[in-house]
């Protein structure tokens, strides 16, 4: 039974600022949910603290609005306890790349099979517009008293260094691309990052919608704006790492990812930068230790007998620790 958009929306009042890129992300996510081949009852969305974090309340799926910067460990805990869940973690750029940078790096090392979407608006929205880690050095968005004093991180490169096996970028107001990218991220086996360029009309007056869509630079002939955002996959770029590639091939691809990810200004690349399903997921790795992990994961194990007693038979363990007898 196909879901309609209305099924995956709650009827709460949405309190984002009008024109906020978050609306685009919300819509794309919800459309992806209706089109994806997953049981909506198994979908759990985690978010952090920031404007972005409210997305779970507008979305009609299990929704866990966690702590600032801690989205990833919360989400991984749920997924590892019940690998049958379809887990989507969502952060802001302050949340995910700022205070959450440590978890960002270490989650890459695990490669748990889930999706991570980051609302990348260059600012700390909910605390009134301080610079986020993706804001460039020397930029001065509206509410900064002085130009930004920190250099920006490149999330694509950071993800690559950390071990993410699917790395993509999309744009909040390109609904179709974002929706498709989310679907591909969810379908990916392993940890998938979708960095979403998100205008914040209230605090970021530099990377605006007009900026991304190139309204300041009309095509001389058509007089229509030439968007800065372009889809790398439309230029023939192929993000896939395949098993038949040599180490050199992989190295080359990696370097290409980084080269492209450094583009900014007149051309801003979106699309899937990197996909590698040859790295075992964390679930695969657990299976090597706990053979029945996927059949009987932590969340579904019977822990008690009919008579309420513990289902565990401690005897061999106790014996191991017993002396004499």
């Amino acid at each position, binding site marked *: 039974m196909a879901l309609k958009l209305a099924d995956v929306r709650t009827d709460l009042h949405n309190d984002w600022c009008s024109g906020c890129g978050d609306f685009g992300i919300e819509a794309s996510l919800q459309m992806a949910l209706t089109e994806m081949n997953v049981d909506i009852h198994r979908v759990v969305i985690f978010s952090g603290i920031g404007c972005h974090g409210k997305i779970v309340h507008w979305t009609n799926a299990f929704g866990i609005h966690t702590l600032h910067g801690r989205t990833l460990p919360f989400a991984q805990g749920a997924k590892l306890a019940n690998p049958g869940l379809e887990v989507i973690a969502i952060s802001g750029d302050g949340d995910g790349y700022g205070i959450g940078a440590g*978890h960002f790096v270490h989650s890459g090392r695990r490669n748990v099979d889930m999706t991570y979407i980051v609302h990348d608006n260059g600012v700390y929205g909910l605390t009134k517009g301080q610079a986020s880690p993706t804001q460039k050095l020397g930029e001065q968005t509206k509410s900064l008293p002085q130009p930004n004093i920190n250099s920006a991180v490149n999330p694509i490169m950071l993800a690559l260094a950390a071990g993410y096996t699917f790395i993509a970028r999309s744009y909040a107001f390109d609904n179709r691309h974002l929706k498709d990218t989310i679907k591909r991220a969810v379908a990916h086996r392993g940890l998938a990052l979708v960095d979403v360029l998100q205008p914040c009309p209230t605090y970021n007056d530099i990377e605006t919608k007009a900026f991304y869509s190139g309204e300041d630079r009309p095509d001389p002939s058509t007089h229509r704006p030439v968007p800065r955002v372009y889809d790398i996959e439309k230029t023939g770029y192929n993000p896939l790492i395949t098993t038949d590639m040599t180490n050199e091939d992989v190295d080359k691809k990696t370097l290409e990812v980084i080269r492209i990810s450094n583009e900014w200004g007149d051309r801003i690349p979106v699309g899937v930068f990197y996909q590698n399903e040859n790295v075992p997921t964390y679930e695969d790795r657990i299976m090597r230790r706990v053979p029945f*992990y996927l059949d009987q994961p932590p969340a579904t194990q019977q822990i008690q007998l009919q008579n309420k007693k513990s289902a565990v038979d401690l005897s061999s363990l106790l014996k191991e620790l017993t002396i*004499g007898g």
Partner: protein
Amino acid sequence: MSSKTVNELNWMIGGAQGSGVDLSASSFARSCALAGLWVYGTREYYSNIKGLHSYFEIRTSGRQIRSKVEGVDLLATFDAETVVRHADAVNPDGGIIYDPAVSQTPIEKVDTLYKDEVRQIQARLAQEGLGSDVDAILEEAKGRGVKLFAIPYGALIQEIAKRLETSELTRLNRIVNVLAVSVSLSLLGLDRRYMEESVRQAFAASRKQKLVEMNLAGVDRAYEFAKEKFGEGGLPIRLAPIQNKPRMFVVGNQAVALGKMAGGCRLQTYYPITPASDESEFLEAHENFDLLGGESNDGKGSIVVVQTEDEIAAVTMAIGGALAGTRAATSTSGPGFSLMVEGMGWAGMNEVPVVVTLYQRGGPSTGMPTRTEQGDLKFVLNASHGEFPRMVLCSGDMEECFYDAFRAMNYAERYQLPVIHLVDKGLANSNMTILPPDPNLVDIERGKLILTSGGGAPKDGEYRRFAPAEDGISPRAVLGLKGYRFWNTGDEHDELGHINENSENRIRMMKKRMSKLETADREIPVTEKVGFYAAAGRPDVTLVSWGSSKGAILEGMELLEKRGIKAEFLQIRLASPFPAQAVRERLSEAKLVIDIEQNYSAQMAAVIAEKTQINIKHRVVKFNGRPISCNEIYDSVRQIVARPEANERVILTHGA
């Protein structure tokens, strides 16, 4: 030889970390246990991997024992430092086993002593007109009546090498431990077969036959040598086998791990920290375990143990797991807990069952990572901003470690809140023989948990995670359960779990959450809240304490009774919700109350004052990182009973 004490012994062995002292201690303890004796052992060591001094005290007895005792009956050493550090702890009629090769070592050459320590010892020896080397220390001991047993380890090892026709002297050198233990046991008259069996068991896992042989040869030669050289040795103590019933020989963190396993914990997250990580590593080593009557999965259950990037991730990952419906826990020590408090608050706000086992150690900050303390009580009671309900259990001994770990998992789910299980390094690193715990003494109680669709179905069709409830506890569904969608947020929320800042909603939700503590207080039997140990007769003094001081207090009470002081003991086992009524009742009748704690400021006394307005004036505190002995209890209580007005605060200082 009828004047000998039988089966009451305090044995000590020391040496550099990593030189095999732990192996010696456990083979000694194991030998005793194999002979049917009860054992209680403690371990002291520095925050160091190799080279700094560590030592074990193994008490053994014909009856169950549960505390450290002052005075060493037999000190086994094979280096200079152990003699220097511990000779003065040997009882006048006790003995010291030493290597004559180190007896000329000057004190100042023991470079793992702090400079201050060297100066102090030198000054002491100078005052006594003695030299300034190991020999002087030995002489000093001898002067007090201590027997000295010189063991030429080097020569013995050479002989063994010859016998075994091996030249692997470096490997053989490691059997110095076995020699020291065997000589000890020989002096104490315990048949060598126990030590032999102990050696076999110790190396059973490694499957290195060669190693077993070497060590058995060591046992052989050491017994021989001791017999030849010292005969019965003149020690006033004998060990004699008494029975042969099976006993468990466990350390505290194993007891906790077993309790968690039996209690249904299926996800444990952790970040390495002393002295907590041993528990997680034990669980990881036993991640696949047997189920009762289970057919599926070959009758195996499992626990997933995840090493996280930090303690923030550890607690939030456990919470994520709990939301999915598993019983989840994490385990840490003070510095780690300091990083977990924000996560605790979120769990409190969202009514998520999660268990944190907190192994207290010397604080503040990094403190004394390998020393014991009960310094975190008030912190955990108040940890994190704002107000939310939490439960705090304090275990007093090995058995309580097991049952409390089990119960903590129950409480968390029944009351849907974070539970902190307080233990300490003293418990975690002590080992003792106990009767195997019985998991069937506690039922698994999951409270208002909905695991399957249709269970506890919402009446109006819409599931409300935080629906109002008389007892404050709403039916709890898990992530992924069809028909039971819910939301969570650290913000104040409505019944569905959506952000809500309405004033009335706020008041209702605060009351609902906080009332769960009242429910717990009402439902939990008083026997799980406090332990009470009556005096034999009308008590002269009431001792109040919590946690690992329990063993020393119980044995101290026996000592006191022998001197005619009747003491009763009130053990606080549940610090939140605080059993104010039970405590008030006990204490308001008491004649003289003494609070005993292993921290600086007598934290439980503060909690008692807050909750009952009873000010316990007399306090015995210890905060040097070394566990309390039963003798310290005896001495300090006697001192206070004798002159209460002059002894309001007694600071215990024992322990090397």
